[in-house]
């Protein structure tokens, strides 16, 4: 049995554990809700994190943490974590915590796979770095949005009050810059 076979076989259980690990960071009072409410619209956070985790799992198992394939799933999870009050160390811990889950699986009667595990861990480290990029991207986005909101408000007002003037083409550029 390869590590891949093992992980495919045990997917449901590991993903569930992983999901629970991510929720560890939330107060008990809300964890339960995120875990149990199954309606994806009544519980968008639980839904997105669960979906993201599950997708990420497949990428790790099937594509060796291929960064391109992992990106949307990392984004799905981290986009939410980035606007909650966690420091990055907590918000992103879930990537590294996966290592322990895998080790636990392997130590339960599959010691022969430890070589493969080492390789997987290297990949996971890369994934963790990528997660950091995503996190920073989200944070930067937040600040950018904050600035844009203010600027649009002020600028729009000034523009319409005819208090600013542009070169003929300038107007268009400004609009496009707005993102």
């Amino acid at each position, binding site marked *: 049995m390869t590590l891949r076979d093992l992980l495919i076989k045990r997917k449901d259980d590991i993903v569930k554990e992983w999901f629970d690990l991510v929720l560890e960071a939330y107060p008990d009072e809300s964890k339960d809700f995120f875990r149990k409410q199954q309606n994806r619209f009544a519980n968008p956070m639980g839904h997105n994190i669960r979906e993201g985790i599950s997708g990420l799992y497949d990428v790790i198992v099937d594509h060796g943490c291929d960064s391109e394939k992992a990106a949307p799933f990392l984004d799905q999870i981290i986009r939410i974590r980035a606007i909650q009050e966690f420091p990055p160390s907590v918000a992103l*811990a879930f990537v590294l915590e996966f290592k322990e889950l895998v080790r636990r699986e392997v130590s339960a009667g599959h010691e022969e796979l430890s070589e493969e595990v080492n390789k997987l861990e290297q990949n996971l480290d890369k994934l963790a770095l990528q997660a950091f990029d995503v996190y920073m991207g989200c944070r930067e986005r937040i600040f950018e949005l904050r600035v844009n909101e203010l600027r*649009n408000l002020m600028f729009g007002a000034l523009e319409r009050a005819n208090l600013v003037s542009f070169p003929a083409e300038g107007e268009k550029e400004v609009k496009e810059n707005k993102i």
Partner: protein
Amino acid sequence: MADIPKPEELAKIDHTPPETPWMETPTVFRDGMWCYGAKPQNIEAVGMPNPREWSPKDEDWKLPDNWKEIVLDGMKDRLGKFRSFKLFMDICVRCGACADKCHYFIGSGDPKNMPVLRAELLRSLYRKNFTLGGKLFGKLAGGRDLTMDVFKELWYYMFQCSECRRCSVFCPYGIDTAEITMMGRELINLLGCNIDWIQAPVANCYRTGNHLGIQPHAYVSMIEFFCDEIEDVTGVRVNPTFNRKGAEILFITPSGDVFADPGTYTAMGYLMLFHYLESMGLDITWSTYASEGGNFGFFTSHEMAKRLNAKMYAEAKRLGVKWILGGECGHMWRVVHQYMDTFNGPADFLEEPVSPITGTKFENAKSTKMVHICEFTADLIRHNKLNLDPSRNDNLVVTFHDSCNPSRGMGFFEEPRYVIKNVCNNFYEMPSNTIREETFCCGSGAGLNAGENLELRMRGGLPRANAVKHVHEKHGVNMLACICAIDRAALPTLMEYWVPDVEVTGVHELVGNALILEGEKKRTTDLRGEPLPGMEDIEDEDL
């Protein structure tokens, strides 16, 4: 080697909050979750108490020495004035039905964002100070003393509620957290602790008639700017009038529609509609004095809401109009629908509204004499009075976001949908537990659409964005329509973060796009100046 912790061990910091009961869990002010305090000049401008320089992050909030007395007296006063408040303090059974209905709780998991706990913050004070059990048994009866920490906690969470009333829909006793938040904010305002994002618009609106403090001449020139834009797109010049005495109808819309994208395009929609109807007998005027439909006073206190709202009737009376037409706005309509007549009525100087085009009597507005523009337009479309080309909106796949206040404070569901369906060919609803009376808030309502609390807004808006994302992925929705100026200000940012491919529009922007004006040129772009697919090529050939 063994001493060096493994990375996963490092990451395994115990971040579960301590298992302390909520009364004993101190509230930590997290950045991104709170708004700046009201500036002294903005408090002074409307004669409210305790103007001073302060920040919520300060240890000392510079409150008067008798601040506790002020809060408790204020509470007593309000218990006597509002049955809702008194009743809601008494009858909650803490069944928890509301707990997972709040978008802030859903998006953050902060237990104090459960509506029941938000209300318990005030209820614990009520019990301690106004009930026998609380006085005798204290904590055992769920009471607690008013301390500075408690007050700050109250402040923190009263400004994490957007008064959307979603919880109230599910409460078996109809307990409305909005009502409780409003009381909480009134108490907070007795000590001059409003947030500036609310206080500044209040001060501006009081003086200049609109939240942004735009003076009359600037207001006019902005609308004229829209007229230019409309001419660019359609080749037709529209000529709105301002402060015109003797007009039949006064039009009031939130100033957001005049000042900020994408609300401005909605304003263009109004202008085009009015122009279209002019020849059919519409006699309408705008006002620079009552140039604000929204009412941030409503997020401050009932009194402030009334003071700002008074301008609507005052201006209608001064101009001698017959009735008032209101633009697309959320909390504006909560105030107009449920408060205005009581605040500043009776409007006996006005007449029962009748559409000059179709002759329809707006029976449901016969006392307040103010009609929602979506009602007005829906009636026009129903009577076939508008010449529409919905295919001009074919580049859009639209969904509709029910804004909290018109939904749960009015029941305004069908009219905007009717309009949208008649001006657009591609319309898809979001899932049923996220629309109509169960609609999710944009996360920025009740004066919380500031910049400094963006994280709060993104969390609060997550449930809404998640539903939009669903229809975006399933049906290719790329336009989120709404009838609320705060939505139009807040949702674009929310969308940019969560669902970057979806833009936000007002319903009358869509109307403006579809409306065929007399003598207009072939349209090659929509009101936003973006090319209409399939129409730009033909332009040259036609010429």
